[in-house]
Each structure stands twice: as C-alpha cells, then as structure tokens.
C-alpha cells in the first residue's frame, strides 16, 4: 500500500500544478509525473520480472493518472472561472487530459518495469527514453503552445554555469562566491566581438571559444594570487572579484590613458614635453546602455538562429551541455580529477603524496571558468543584449544554490538542481503569483463586503510582494528536508549517513574537512 500512497501524493501534486498553468499543461505534467513516479517506484522495488513489476504498479499508475485527470478537469470546470479566465477549448480539454492520463500511466509502468531488467540494460533503456524525451520536448511544447522551451533554455544556461562551478566547489572544494564574474566576462567578450558597437563581427562559432578562453584566462589570473588563501578567505576574495567585475563593465565608458612620464613627471622637473595621450574618452563597454544587438550563430541548413524560434537554441544548448558533461566526466575520472578530490579531502596529505596543490587548484579555477565562458557566450547571443546588472552578486548566489541544491559534486545533481531551481524561479513562482492574483481579484475580493477590510486584503495579499519570501522559503525548506541536495554525491551521502552510526557521529573532522577543503 506504500506505493499506492506515493501514487496518490504524486497525482495530487501534479493535479494542483495544472491549476497554475491550465490548458495543454496537463499532458506534459502527466508525462513528467509518470517519469518521476516510475523512477521512484522502481527504485523502491526488488529486481524481478519487468512485467510483474509493471503489473504491480499498474493500479498505482491508474490512480495517480485518474487523480491528475480529475483535478485537471476540476480546474477547467471551476478554477478557471474562479480566476476569471475562459475555460479551454473542447479539443484541448479532451486531448490534453487523454494524453496526460495516458502519459502518466504508461511512463509510470514503463519506468518502474524497466527496473526489472539487469542493471546495465535498465540504465541503457532509461537513457534512450530520456534522450527521446529531451528531443521530443520542444516539439511537443510547440504543439501545445505552452512556451516552456524558452524557460528551459534559460534553466539550461544555469545548468552549464552550475556544472562549471561544480568543478571549483564540488571537486576541488574551493568556495567561490563570485562566479557570475566569469559569466560576465564570457558574455562581454562575445558582446564586444560581435556587435555593431565596436564594429567587430566575429562569427559566433569562433567567438564562443574566445569567450571560453578569456574566462579561463581570467580564472587563472584571479586564481594565481588567491590560492594561498584558505577556505572562507578565498570565498570573500572571489566575492570581491564578483563585485568588482560588474562595476568595471558598468564604468569603463570613458577611458582616458595619459602617459605619466610626459604628462606629469617630467613637467614636475620643469622639463617641457608634449603630453602623450594613449586613449581618450573611449567607451569600451557602453555601461548601462548595454551592448545590443549581438550577432547570432547560423548553420548551413538552418540559417541564422532567431530569437523567435527557441528550438534551434534549445538544441544548441543541449549540445553544449552534452559536450560539457562529457568533458567534465573525463576530467573527473582523470588524474587531475582525482587530485582535486584528494585536495578537497586533505590538502596536506595530498601534497605529501606528490600532488602540487597550487597547480591543481589553478586548473580547477581556470577550467571552471571556461564553462561559464560558454554559458556567457550563449546567453549574449541568445538574448542579443547584455547589461551589467545581470551579473551581480545575486546571480553568483543562484548558481551556488543550483550546485548545492542539486547535490554538490554530482553532475546529475547539478543538472536536476539547475532545472528545478530555475523552473521554480521562472515558471512556478510567476505562475503561482498570477494564479493567486487572479483568484484574489475575481473571487476573494468581491466576496468581502467591508471596504476597509477589502482594501487591507488587497494591499497586503498581492503575491508579487511575496516573491522573495517564496524563493527564500523554497531554499530553507529544501535544505531542511535534504541538506545533502536532491541527488547527492555518493561520498557526501556516505559521510552524512554512515551505516548504523548515530548521525551526530558524522560530524568528525573528516566530514567537515571534506566539504571545506
């Protein structure tokens, strides 16, 4: 009956989600719920005949799908009215719910059933299924006109950033609070090298490498002097760097460089010279005006990527992520990767074993920055405009949250963390806000007769005012429920929950140091 209970929970949660989005969303939410439920149920069951597992979970799948459908229908019949919107069209209701129901049932049984296969087979089939979903998603999204692809693209930018930061924080154990600076450097390199502003137009496919290289160089330059610092001192230096970089991009708008020898020093000794002015009033970054428009990539068959068509961008960023994951996996399993982890675990011991800590850490910094260079180049070209305010401290913090929320040191964790956090910020919270706001104006407020109370309710219940609260609560609750992240690194989990030992014992010097580095 335990699986039935999780089925009901999933069904209710997914059904409530449809309240926020309405329309076709039930089809996608149903399928996604099916994938999640199937994975969850499968992992909890013993490995046995796939068909038998499928049979076992089928009732749960049906119940979950039914709850989802019922709630979604309720949404269309009553909730839409309560928030002052027209009910969806007939064909949307029928097919949306049908697909949602079928998606939920099929994916749940399928994924749970896959668990019956031998481990390798299971993994293979799951990967194939995942790949199919990833490829199919933007087309389904286009058909259903939900426009989630653009939000996913944005989330994926943060996934790349998270993957890069994970090298620094997760593998090498160096806390970096100014990672957005490298993102900015990547974006600005791209902006300056492919826009009418400086009259330089370098092809995107070349610029993206220049941007990555530039970010790496800066990572190296920042890392070289700061690596003698330990732990949180390093954190504050990176934070400082993260604060300085946006200020630089904002203020480098009127550069005048005079050669000091001829302009001041010689005149001080009453030697008459003509002042050599190297640069005068040069506007490098355009400050808050921002650099726009920025050149876009183009491919032979597809032509130039357009902002209005997210599908091409979606596949471009998926390609970048695949490349990044491939490279990072190889790095992690290489000699360098093992050195990072050795340093994270115990720097002294690692140094004794012949690992050069400075070189290893520098490599982490530079390589970590490289990936944010990719992300920056992609961002600049995709948005076609960059403004210094995007790269402030809060962006660094969000990238860090992506890494920690997902599971520090774990590639899959970072991907899931990035998707969940950014979806919460971009899709869920705005939708919740709109939903509550419409509910308030259409149903709650008219039912309050006392004008004073009505005004007070109206002034203080505007969900727009609570977006920080919701975001903060998400983080705090997430950490309270799963402090090791959603998909934790095996090592971290082992340290947190050693077998049969009371949790309090986990706080040995080993644990602390493992994360601290």
């Amino acid at each position: 009956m335990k699986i039935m209970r999780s089925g009901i929970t999933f069904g209710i949660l997914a059904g409530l989600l449809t309240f926020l989005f309405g329309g076709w969303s039930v089809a996608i939410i149903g399928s996604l719920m099916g994938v999640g439920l199937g994975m969850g149920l499968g992992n909890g069951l013993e490995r046995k005949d796939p068909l038998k597992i499928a049979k076992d979970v089928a009732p749960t799948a049906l119940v979950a799908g039914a709850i989802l459908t019922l709630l979604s229908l309720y949404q269309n019949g009553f909730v839409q009215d309560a928030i002052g919107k027209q009910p969806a069209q007939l064909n949307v209701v029928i097919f949306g719910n049908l697909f949602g129901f079928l998606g939920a049932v099929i994916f749940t049984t399928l994924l749970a059933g896959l668990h019956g296969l031998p481990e390798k087979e299971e993994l293979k089939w799951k990967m194939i299924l995942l790949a199919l979903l990833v490829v199919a998603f933007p087309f389904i999204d286009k058909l259903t006109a939900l426009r989630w692809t653009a939000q996913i693209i944005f989330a994926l930018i943060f996934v790349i950033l998270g993957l890069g930061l994970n090298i620094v924080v997760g593998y090498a154990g160096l806390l970096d609070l100014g990672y957005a600076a490298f993102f900015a450097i990547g974006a600005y390199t791209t902006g300056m090298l492919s826009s009418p502003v400086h009259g330089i137009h370098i092809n995107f496919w070349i610029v993206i490498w220049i941007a990555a290289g530039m970010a790496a160089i800066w990572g190296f330059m920042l890392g070289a002097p700061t690596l003698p610092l330990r732990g949180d001192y390093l954190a504050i230096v990176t934070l400082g760097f993260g604060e300085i970089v946006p200020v630089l991009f904002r203020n480098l708008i009127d550069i005048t460089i005079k050669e000091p020898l001829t302009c001041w020093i010689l005149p001080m000794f009453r030697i008459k010279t003509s002042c050599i002015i190297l640069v005068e009033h040069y506007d490098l970054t355009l400050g808050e005006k921002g650099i726009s428009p920025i050149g876009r990539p183009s491919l032979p068959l597809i032509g130039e990527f357009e902002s209005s068509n997210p599908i091409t961008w979606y596949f471009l960023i998926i390609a970048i992520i695949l490349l990044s994951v491939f490279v990072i996996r190889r790095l992690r399993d290489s000699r360098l990767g093992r050195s990072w982890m050795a340093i994270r675990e115990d720097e002294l011991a690692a140094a004794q074993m012949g690992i050069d800590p400075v070189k290893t850490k520098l490599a982490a910094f530079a390589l970590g920055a490289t990936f944010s260079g990719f992300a920056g180049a992609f961002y600049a070209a995709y948005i076609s405009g960059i403004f210094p305010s995007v790269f402030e401290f809060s962006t660094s913090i969000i990238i860090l949250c992506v890494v920690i929320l997902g599971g520090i040191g774990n590639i899959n964790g970072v991907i899931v963390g990035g998707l969940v956090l950014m979806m919460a910020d971009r899709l869920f919270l705005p939708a919740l806000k709109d939903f509550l706001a419409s509910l308030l104006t259409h149903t709650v407020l008219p039912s309050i007769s006392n004008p004073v109370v009505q005004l007070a309710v109206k002034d203080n219940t505007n969900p727009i005012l609570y977006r920080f609260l919701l975001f903060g609560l998400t983080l705090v609750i997430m950490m309270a429920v799963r402090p090791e992240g959603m998909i934790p690194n095996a090592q971290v989990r082992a340290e947190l929950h050693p077998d049969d030992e009371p949790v309090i014992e986990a706080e040995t010097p080993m644990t602390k140091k493992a994360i601290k580095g």
Partner: protein
Amino acid sequence: METARKKFNWRRFAIATLVLYIVFLIGPIVGLDIPVVYAAIKANPLQLVQFLIIGISNGAIVAIIALGYTMVYGIIELINFAHGDVYMIGVFTSLTVLSVTGTLESKDPVKITLGLILALVIAIVFCAILNAAIERLAYRRLRNAPRLAPLISAIGMSFIIENIGLMWAAQAWLVPSFGTTGGASQKVFPDMLGILFASLGWNINLLASSGLALRLTIKDLLVIVLAVVLMTGLYLFVQRTRLGKAMRATAQNRDAAKMLGIDIDRVITATFLIGGGLAGAAGLMAGLYNNTAWWFMGFRAGLQSFTAAVLGGIGNITGGMLGGFLIGLLASFSDGYLNARWTNALVFATLVLILLFRPTGLLGEQTGQKA
C-alpha cells in the same frame, strides 16, 4: 645580512618603479589620478580631517554589524547571510517603537530621550530573539550537514527577512510617515537627535564655535562612542565571563568543549543572541545617523560588514572593529578624492590586496591547516 643591507636591491627598485608607473598610467581610469588627488588635498587640507570624521562614523556602524558576523563565524564557521537583514529589521523596529510611543511628534527633550532609550532596548531585544530564532529554525538541524547546506539556508533566510522588511515598510497604520507608496521605496527615519539637540538649544555641530570649516556633529560622536563602548563590553564579556570562556572554548574545538561539559546549544544560542542584539543597536544608530529605513539596506550593509570582518581577521573581535573603521575610511576617501562610482570596487580591491599579503586578515592568527 650585512651585505644585503648595503647592496642596493635593484630588482626591488625596478619592480616598485614599474608598479608606480602602472598606477600613474592606469589609475586615472578608476579615478585614482594621483596628481589630481594631490592638488585636491593641497587646496583644502582641512577637508582631509572631515573625510576622516565621516569615514570613522560610517565605519563604526559597519564595525558593530561586523562583530555579529565575526562571532557567529568564530563559533560555527557559518557566513550568516541573514545577519545584515537582522540589522535592517533593527532599523524598522526602532522606527516603529519611536512612532508608536509618539516620540516622532514630540519636541520635549525628556520624552525624546526616553523614547530613544526604549527604542534601543526593544530593538536590541527583538533582534536578539530574531537572530536566535533564525538559528533555531534554519541552522541548528543543519549543524551536521555538509558545510555549504547552512549557507544556502542562510541565503534563504536572508530573502525571507528582506521580504518581511518589504511588508513592514508598507504598514502606514504603524508608522504614518511610511506613506501610501508601498513598501519598496526608501522611508525616512526622522532626525531625532537633531530635534533633540535643537530643543535643548545646542548646536549640533560641536566644532561650530572653533571657527574651523569642520563638522563634527553630536551624531558622529555618539555613533563612534557607542561603537567603542559596545566593542569594549563585548571584549570584556568574551574574555572575563564564564559564558565568554565557554564561547571561546567552543570556537576552538567544539568536541573537546562538549566533553568538558559545555552546553554547546546554549553557547551557540547565546552567540546568536548577542550578535542579533548588536545588529539591533546598529540598526537604531544607523537610522539616527543616516535617517533612512529601507528593506534592502541590510544587503549592502551585510556585504560590507562581512568584508570588514574578514579584513580584520574573522573570529577576532578587535579585528572586526578595525576592519569596519578601515572600510568606512576607504569609502569616505574614495567618495571624496576619487570618483564615487568606483568606491565599491575600490573597497573590494583593497580587501583582495590586503588578503594577498596577509592571508588571514589584519589581526587574524595563522591557524595552520586545521584538520
């Protein structure tokens, strides 16, 4: 040694010259135009003193907030991101107390003084409890989690408290001067000290009769004195009292302290209470000094104070104080002689430079590789 002293170090000289040349060359981009700065100081040397006064007064507020950071960090090695926002709540608490008690409208010196003292007490108590509650709710259960988990929790808490401030600033029934324009914009914190001294017939500028073109206001003095008093009190508390010793023991080695029978939870709660109380006091002081209440003011103040704590050597009370004053001075000189738009970058650049030469901050101890 002897030969080294006699022999002129050409390499060092060349490097120094080169650095100087580069400063002269690139400096003007960030406002560091040395001939211009020199001319400005020469034209009005007295103004240097004025910037000193402003810098120290501003630094005093930063320093008090920094003490809260440094204490918490010393004990549980957590960057308490919410601390700056507790300070912001301190500003709102004291403003609300002043408004509710009718002090804002009063012109009677006795009533204003009593109102200010009451506001100070309530702000301290409220912020202390708030800070301890944050620890209880968000950090305690994470004490054994990976070290970055409580950091995220702290960031989340910071967002939550900022939002509370945003709501608070919209409650015009509580403080009428908030107006009806919503909570997001800055609100005025009336200049109660100015009113108080005007009602006593004093000139707020203590140096007005000296004939110098300088301003040392009673506000400046009060902020500085209060900061020094609080710091001395805290220092004595940590050095002399039983609880203070327990704190130091816990900071050094929590497990060993536990074995010696120290109640770790109690010590940590006490630390958060004291840190929060200091933030509350800083809140009232900043409100009186800068006359602003704003839901977002905690963010920048927190960042600066944490920088100050690190600059001085985190975990070190005197260091936190020193760092705070240093940051205030830097900002004031940068605003005054360089270009205000570069001030923030300059503060952090200095921090980076100092840490490069003294990796554990100005007064931080070389702790070695702590296992």
